[in-house]
């Protein structure tokens, strides 16, 4: 069986930021499920690894958190994007698109094109 690719720390952070950008404030499980859904089970994420990452992003000021009530009316910690986080997401998205564009161009090159 083919191993599911590991998620790089930086990529996961970007996914978290994008998720919060799209969905608005979310609790940890919501973020984890969203990432799982979108990646279509291709990524192996131990959901628990999300929590140290969330704390790191919070320390860096990209996201903020507060207690709130979940769907079933229990206490849950909700994370939301801050202004700094939005800026970071924008710039990282741009970087990422640039990188993929370059890689894509490399893959599209055929032997004949080089002459």
């Amino acid at each position, binding site marked *: 069986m083919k191993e599911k690719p590991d998620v790089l720390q930086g990529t996961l952070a970007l996914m978290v930021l994008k998720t919060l950008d799209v969905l608005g404030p979310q*609790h*940890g499980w919501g973020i984890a499920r969203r990432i799982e859904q979108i990646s279509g089970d291709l990524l192996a994420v131990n959901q*628990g690894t999300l929590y140290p990452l969330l704390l790191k992003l919070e320390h860096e000021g990209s996201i903020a958190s507060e207690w709130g009530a979940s769907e079933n009316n*229990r206490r849950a*910690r909700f994370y939301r994007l801050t202004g700094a986080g939005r800026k970071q997401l924008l710039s990282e998205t741009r970087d990422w698109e640039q990188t993929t564009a370059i890689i894509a161009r490399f893959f599209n090159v055929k032997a004949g094109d080089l002459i």
Partner: protein
Amino acid sequence: MKFLRRFFTRLSNLATGRRADQRLQDEIAEHLALQTEENLRTGMPPGEARRQARLKLGAGETIREDHHAEHSIPFIENLLFDLRYAVRMLLRSPGFSFIAIATMALGIGATTAIYSVIDATLLHPLPYRNPAELVRIQDDLPGVGAQGVGISVPEWRDLESSGIFQSASITGTGANVNLTGSAQPLRLSFKQVTPNYFAVLGVDAQLGRTFDPHDATPGYNLEVVISDGLWRREFGADPHILGRALRLDNDVYHVVGVMPRGFRDQGSTSEEQNVELWLGAGFAGVPFPPPLRSSRLRSRVVIARLKHGSSIEAAQGHLDALVESLKKQYPAEYPAQTAWTVRLIPLSETVVGSVRQSLVLLFGAVGLVLLISCVNVANLLLTRASARSREIAVRQALGAQRARLIRQFLVESLLLFLLGGIAGFGILFCAGHLLLRLVPESLPHLNDIGVNWGVMAFALTVSVAAGTIFGLAPAWLMSRADLIGTLRQEGRGASGSRDRSRARQILVISELALSLVLMVAAGLLLRSFWDLFNVQPGFNADRTMAIETWLAGPNDPTKDPYQTATQESVLLREILSRSRALPGVQEAAIGDEASLPLGHSDPGGLPLIREGIETMDNQAPVIDSPIVSPEYFHLLGMPLRSGRLFSDQDLEDTPQVAVINQAAAHTYWPGQYPVGKHVRLHRDTRGLVSSSQPVWTTIIGVIADARTESLADAAIPQIYRSVHQRPAKDLVIFLRGQLDSSTIATQVRQQVQSVDATLPVFHAETLDDVLSTSLSVRRFSMEMVACFAATALLLAGLGIYGTISYVVNEQRREIAIRLALGAQRDTILKMVLRRGLGLAVAGAGLGAAGALVVSHLMAGLLFGVSPTDPPTFAGVTLVLTAVALAASYIPALRAMRLDPITTLHSE
């Protein structure tokens, strides 16, 4: 930016002890609940749903650890843990901790104390801008054995225009002047300087101005710059002081500026640094001699500032070329046999050069003490490691990493060393002013010595460095314990500690060797000092006091009431007869400052022109020439060897006469009878320069040599002249008898001022004090080194005691078996003592080799004793061996008295 923000949040979490654990637990509980619900929705049975949710979440402990690591800073947190553990360990064995901390406090405290002295003297000798550019220019005539003969004004002008220097300035060496007009005539230290002096030093006035560097007045420009101290003390910090007239030696000067607070003149003695008046002078007109190339300005110092970025070597090269061309240009002025040279000396060297060797020696000695303290503590740490080897083995068996263990031990030893350093610094800080009293007053920059931030940084740096170096080795050896062996032997740790016991022996041997080096140094210094102290000075200092006074020397000689010897004689005879009438006084005499044995600064010397041998000043050898009254030789007990002494009939209008000492007779008239020879001495710069006709002085007597210049020098040529023929301005009144030192100074002042109320009277001291002051730097370094050596010996004794005790403890089983098998008790005693002796011999051998090197390095500080003095070496080795044996004797006794049955049962 992001990183910093994250770091500070974590740091504040760490500092405030805020925990995130509960939050994580809550979040995870919620997460699991949500995931379980989701799983239930997909139709899993409840048990399986919970299990799958947990699996999906991952290992709880890892998440917790990662989360915690993100929340706080693990490295610092571990360090805090280690620190807490270290403190607990220290508290658990208070005896050990106390000894270790006290040892380090001693080592670091002593080192820091000496460093604070060095910091103020050797490291910061000159409180001026770019001090490295400042040089002293010294003229030598090596051909006639004369050093520092002074510069002439034309030569100075050559230097100024040579382009080698930014600027060069002639300065007086610091002298005294009488400030009259206030309640009591004041004697103030002043310096005549060329107007560019302050430009050379690079200092400006805080009020008013300094002299105009381009001022070309030939004589005094009648401007005076005063010190901040004088301004505050005498003039109440008057802001309108500028333009005020001061009467100095009966001349009127106008104040043009006040130097900033904290400005100190350069010089090696506190007297030179405490100059309070600076007078601008061109040194080229009245009252100075005319600016001829041949008239050197004696007792003047030239200091200069080199061009930016120019090295002393390069400047010296240019200067040598200049000297050569001047010699060619003026062959008559610079006769070849005098070999005139001009030397550049870093100014800092002239300020602290005289004490550099002593201070370096002290720093070396104290460094050895520090090293011994460190070795001792390292030894203690190793001993304790053995006691803790079981703990270490258990922790390793439970999976503690070696690096982690080393780090923990290192934290422990660092804590010990740091506490020691802080304790040492604290003691120094509290007792600093007491310790300063031990420092001789003649040390340059005495007032700048202090315990400041730099000194504190030094103490902390030394503590940390020593803790790291001497903590690392024990930590490394401790963590290397043989796990299985140690555990199997129930913690006695005999086999795992072979490295350790070897390390400990090496440490003890080096301790013994280092202390031997120190003891030899102390022994040699002690012997030198003892010899010096007991040397026959050749004059009698008993019951004798010296009291100084100063006659004003106005710029216009005709205004001087004591212009001629005849005029001055009247005053001196009156002072002498009144002094003799004081209670207790048996004898009284007068001389100039140069006649004060061991108590005068370097007089510079005058050229001695012998009839028929030399014809010009600049060819002549230079000789010290005190001026004395006829009673001087009898009062100081300096016996006549041939000829006669001065009499009251030798007056200004009778033939000029002089008395020399035997050294002068041997040096300048070898194999001849000197009495009756004619000589001429270059006239002093002050006073009248008139006699076109050379007046010859006849030598009338030879006295025995006395160590009046330095106790270490048996014989320096001297030529004495009578004060009744040669007036002197700087007078010392000598009194002998049953004197009450507390009142005599006041009585003499009253008597002197009843003759002339303008004369200041100051500086009364007994000749015994003068004598002992002249030895103060030597005594200081001797006492310090002896104190360090005693400390070292004590520490080495403790070290060998600890090691032998440990060895005995380790071998008690073996000793018990031997005893049980019938070994004699004194055989056991000898066996243990032999161990101690072996260490002592090895240490003494190494130490003696080291001491030979060190004693040759300090040969310059020794007097009358050779650096390889066998009695010192033998005595010191004996003492060290005795101490080592005594220290081994106690554990040896313990070994001898072992009860085999109890010992073997208890194992």
